[in-house]
């Protein structure tokens, strides 16, 4: 697809359409070999339309790669503070919005929902519609930009996006703390996230022995050392003291977070599932997961998000109980929702679709009356997939 008109034509002509951008989240864009579904490739609908560093805004076509945007912004000392994930794997702006993905940096100033301020999308009738605006503050009309965050291409096809950006801190520092057990880590997490220290990112993951917590701060380099020390004392003060603390700066620090953004920690062959939760749910999730073979996981956004490496549908030597379908059941038991991004998804019925189609949604169903009514208005003929 090289133009909006082409997309509009395709939507009008096809019985059903799905969208693919950079292909970095294949579980969302690749499955479904049904004859009546036409996949529209938006990776060529790219390019920056406008960038106004003084306004803290830019507008770009949906197929523009996140990595290209990051490179453009950094020249002006700006960035997308929510650390869009999978940029190194070719993620596009449109795909990142449609999948509703924010990374570790979301902790400080908010997620992709908070930085997307304007959109254009093609609805189920093939009309291009504008939502939001191009200024950082705007309360006029329904907030379509927010609606399209996480919409998975099921309410319309994003063609153009306007984002708010922020000045990038001059320097970052990260303190890594090692804990014997999860409960000690969670005590420290509570202490540090309630302290007055401005935290950019708070991630944790099981280590070979015990657990590791990474806490990132940013700002003027002259006082970063002093602030890092204050952070270390908060971490050492609690009941569950860390076994070891280490301070990371510059290149080495940056690579810690690059690993998180690009999901480099995810072993080859594992699928990637994203599960929102809250810090208080972490022990129950750990208890449930410890019974399975799934090993790879990383908690992000201060315990509000779990990235989970899980065997996918096609994995040859997966355990008996570690299929995406099993994960679906586990998440249902935990009353959580998840979405598979990488790997072949489970085969499950989504409403209105065939039973044999792959379904990336796991756990508690998304469907509710509000969403149903919105979807009917924007896509009356159900050109896009249903939930």
């Amino acid at each position, binding site marked *: 697809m090289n133009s909006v008109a082409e997309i509009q034509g395709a939507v009008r002509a096809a019985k059903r359409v799905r969208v693919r951008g950079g292909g970095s989240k294949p579980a969302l864009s690749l499955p479904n070999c049904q004859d009546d579904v036409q996949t529209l490739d938006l990776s060529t609908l790219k390019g920056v339309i406008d960038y106004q560093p*003084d*306004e803290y*805004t830019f507008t770009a076509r949906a197929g523009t790669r996140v990595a290209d945007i990051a490179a453009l912004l950094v020249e002006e000392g700006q960035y997308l503070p929510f650390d869009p994930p999978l940029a190194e794997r070719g993620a596009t702006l449109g795909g990142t919005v449609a999948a*509703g993905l924010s990374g570790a940096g*979301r*902790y400080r*100033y*908010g*997620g992709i929902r908070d930085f997307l301020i304007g959109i254009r999308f093609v609805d189920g009738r093939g009309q*291009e*519609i*504008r*939502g939001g*605006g*191009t*200024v*950082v*503050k*705007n*309360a*006029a*009309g*329904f*907030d379509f930009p*927010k*609606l399209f965050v*996480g*919409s*998975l291409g099921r*309410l319309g096809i994003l063609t153009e996006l306007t984002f708010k950006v922020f*000045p990038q801190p001059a320097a970052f520092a990260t303190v890594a703390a090692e804990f014997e057990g999860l409960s000690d880590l969670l005590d420290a997490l509570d202490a540090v*996230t*309630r302290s*007055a*220290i*401005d935290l950019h990112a708070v991630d944790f993951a099981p280590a070979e022995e015990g657990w590791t917590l990474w806490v990132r701060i940013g*700002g*003027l380099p002259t*006082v970063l050392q*002093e*602030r890092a020390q204050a952070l270390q004392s908060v971490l050492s003060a609690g009941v569950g003291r860390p076994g070891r603390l280490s301070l990371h700066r510059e290149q080495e620090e940056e690579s810690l977070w690059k690993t998180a953004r690009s999901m480099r920690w995810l072993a080859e062959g594992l699928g990637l599932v*994203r599960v*929102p*939760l*809250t*810090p*208080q749910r972490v022990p129950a999730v750990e208890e449930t997961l410890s019974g399975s073979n799934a090993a790879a996981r990383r908690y992000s956004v201060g315990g*509000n998000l779990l990235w989970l490496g899980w065997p996918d549908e096609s994995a040859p030597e997966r355990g008996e109980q570690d299929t995406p379908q099993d994960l679906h059941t586990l998440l249902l038991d935990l009353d959580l*929702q998840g*979405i598979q991004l990488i790997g072949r998804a489970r085969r499950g019925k989504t409403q209105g679709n065939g039973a044999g189609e792959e379904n990336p*949604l796991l756990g508690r169903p*998304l469907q*509710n*009356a*509000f*969403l149903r*009514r*919105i979807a009917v208005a*924007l896509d009356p003929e159900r050109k896009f997939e249903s*939930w």
Partner: protein
Amino acid sequence: MNVHPLIDALSRIYDSDRLLTRPAQLMAYESDALTVFQQRPAAVVIPQDRAEVIETVQLCHEHSVPFVARGSGTSLSGGSLPIAEGIVIALNRLDRILRLDAEERIAVVEPGVINLKVSEAAKPYGLYYAPDPSSQSICTIGGNVAFNSGGAHCLKYGMTSNHVLGMTVALPDGEVVELGGESLEGVGPDLPGFFVGSEGLFGVALEITLRLLPIPQTYRTVLAAYDSLHAAGDAVTAVVASGLLPGAIEIMDALAIKAAEVGAKAGYPTAPALLIVELEGEESAVEAEFAQLMQLIEETAPVEVRMAQTADERARIWKGRKAAFSAVGRLAPDYIVQDGVVPRSRLGDALAEIDRLSASYGIEVANVFHAGDGNLHPLILFDGREEGALERAEELAGEILELCVELGGSITGEHGVGMEKRAFLPKMYGPLEMQAMEDVRRSVDSRSLANRGKMLPAGEAESLTHVGPHPLEKAGVIFRE
């Protein structure tokens, strides 16, 4: 429309002291803070719990009677103006903070909870609720949700929608749905984000889950006076380009300064323009950033600079700023406040044009604005006792809104479209966009009952009348942003 069968049905739920139908009782609900609009509803109900709200909404749907959910009535866009022959659902008694979970850093509240009460309740845990509309001591969270309220600190932390994680909502036919949850992240479309700012058209929020933030360790506030608005605007550009991210950047013009002096005795310097910049965060970081900020400000040649050294001095600077609007009431019998947004770099152009319009209409305009995000608040002064003065002031206000759209901005930054600006929404969006909004609204609310006549241009036109400021505003209890 015969509303009596509905009122009969409502009288089986509500005692007579919570079902108001007599003209004297209804008078208090006839308008909100945008007092130029007045409308008497058929009845006002005062529910005590969510079950009563749901039942009321269901009954309205059954009887096809429109309803307006209302909090404290501080809307500046006529958002909670009643509908003739409709019902007002006054939510002030749903004022419980249901849960305050410091570990999860959330508060679950009912819609009638007053904004400031959330921060007060969170304070013992070192937490606060960030959005701070100037009316925060009286406005309710339900109203903030409906109109996506802002405040002086939006630049860094965003508006109401950036702080709402989840909601329980009664859709316009009374069906109850859960949107979002307690996590900062979600799966699927951001439905709480879509509901916030929908101006009551999608139904009534019954329970709202708010994100709380740690209270900043310290604030540093500087006030700089300039010999022109242009110079103050240049200073904003310098601050923004420096990479600093202040919590607030505000500008006031001479007339607004005068008003603040008369109204709040803020002790501001007399100058054509005042700039307020505030940094917040950790002590050591703010200290270092403030040094950088002061150097920047010195380079912009201010005529006077004052730093707030104590919490009291900071409070005084903000008191003048927050009271400026109401204080304008001392300079003229009446005024209209506008809420347009322009790209930050076009602030100078916008102000020059407002100046020109003001001169050509012969109407004084005071300017107070959130300069950091280009949000203008022109205050158009008039005397409503003069024949045609209100209409001319409205006309000028309209020209300013059109100017904001022309410059690539918005007709509202934080007050909402409401009743007041619904004729201007189609100037900002094209017919396809208006149709899409109407389609979604019809699909959510097939009978267009929820806050009918707001935001989307439709329904019966209300009459403009002159009544002067809100009584609470006259008394200095509420301020306009």
